[in-house]
């Protein structure tokens, strides 16, 4: 049975993978959700094979299992509870401020954030504090290390940042 089941399954994948991909792409947006849904549909399809007696067309059967899995089947995945919020959604903040500032500056800041996120977390926190204008002594108090150590680390972090933003900043 299991061998036969695997063979049918392989055939179905060969011929009808497109159908499944369409459903996955229509009902799950981010890549992680897509992988989850895709794997879930494949599992349910594989489990359904012993019930497939040839009295239904293959495409009908596959569509049923895939749509039922996407729409009806209660996946374990936790739904995010909607909670009361005290601020305008973060999504709007970025666009909202486009008027206040030049678009060029906004783009620079965006690139800066992308670079900062690629630094090791402690280096990025030093860069953030430096950008916000904290003195070495203050940074040392936040981090719990000596001021001279802060200097060493800040230089290293600036160099990493310079590599990540090549062409944008000249003096790093």
């Amino acid at each position, binding site marked *: 049975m299991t061998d036969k089941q695997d063979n049918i399954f392989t055939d179905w994948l060969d011929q009808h993978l497109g159908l499944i991909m369409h459903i996955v792409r229509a009902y799950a947006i981010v890549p992680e959700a897509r992988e989850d849904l895709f794997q879930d549909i494949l599992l349910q399809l594989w489990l359904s094979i012993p019930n*497939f007696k040839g009295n239904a067309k293959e495409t009908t059967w596959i569509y049923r299992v895939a749509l*039922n899995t996407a729409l009806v089947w209660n996946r374990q995945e936790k739904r995010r509870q909607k909670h009361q919020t005290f601020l305008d959604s973060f999504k709007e903040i970025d666009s909202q401020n486009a008027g206040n500032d030049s678009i060029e500056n906004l783009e620079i800041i965006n690139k800066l954030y992308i670079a900062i996120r690629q630094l090791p977390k402690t280096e990025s926190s030093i860069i953030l504090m430096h950008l916000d204008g904290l003195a070495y002594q203050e940074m040392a108090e936040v981090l719990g290390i000596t001021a001279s150590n802060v200097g060493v680390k800040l230089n290293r972090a600036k160099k990493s940042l310079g590599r990540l933003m090549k062409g944008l900043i000249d003096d790093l």
Partner: protein
Amino acid sequence: MTFDDLRTTWQSQASACQPKIDLPVLLQILQRAKRDFAAMILRRDVLEVAIAFLMFLVFLNDYSDSREWPLLLLASSCLFVGGFMVIDRFLQKRKAPKLFDPLQSCIKESLTAVNHQIWLLKNVFWWYLLPPGIGVLTHYCYIGFKIIPTLESTGAAFGIVCFVCVVGITMMIFWWVYNLNQNAVEKELLPRKQELEQLLENLQ
């Protein structure tokens, strides 16, 4: 562009837009997922029932030692809860939604299952908490009335405090279990029910 052009574009795309699948790994993952799922179901279905029957045996044995009738009440309440769960799960398993059914049937089957689940949890007090609750409280009272009168005054006062504490803690645990269940209804089952009803309505 007409809709038929769109369809042609769509279908020409379809064949191109397919991920490469590592079939042996996939089959292995499916096997494991099936095993995990079966183990999860077994654990869920067997463990609670096994604990209920185990406690039935323990209380029955205690009764055969001490011949205190509240123990018999406790034992039979455990048996009732265990039996109720076995029968309910057996009946529900036969009606589980089949994902290879047409959408409309599958939605209806899922809706029936969710409604039953809601009924079960909303009434958790009557079939899960009340029977052992009566048993436990009777047992406490029986012991209290037997021991406290035999003690001298300070001992009796201490006995009463102990009695109140024990009853209070027990009530707290029961209340907590009750709340857990009602939370699950509110936060998971009712939204799910609405979702399914919406789907069914759109299909009819």
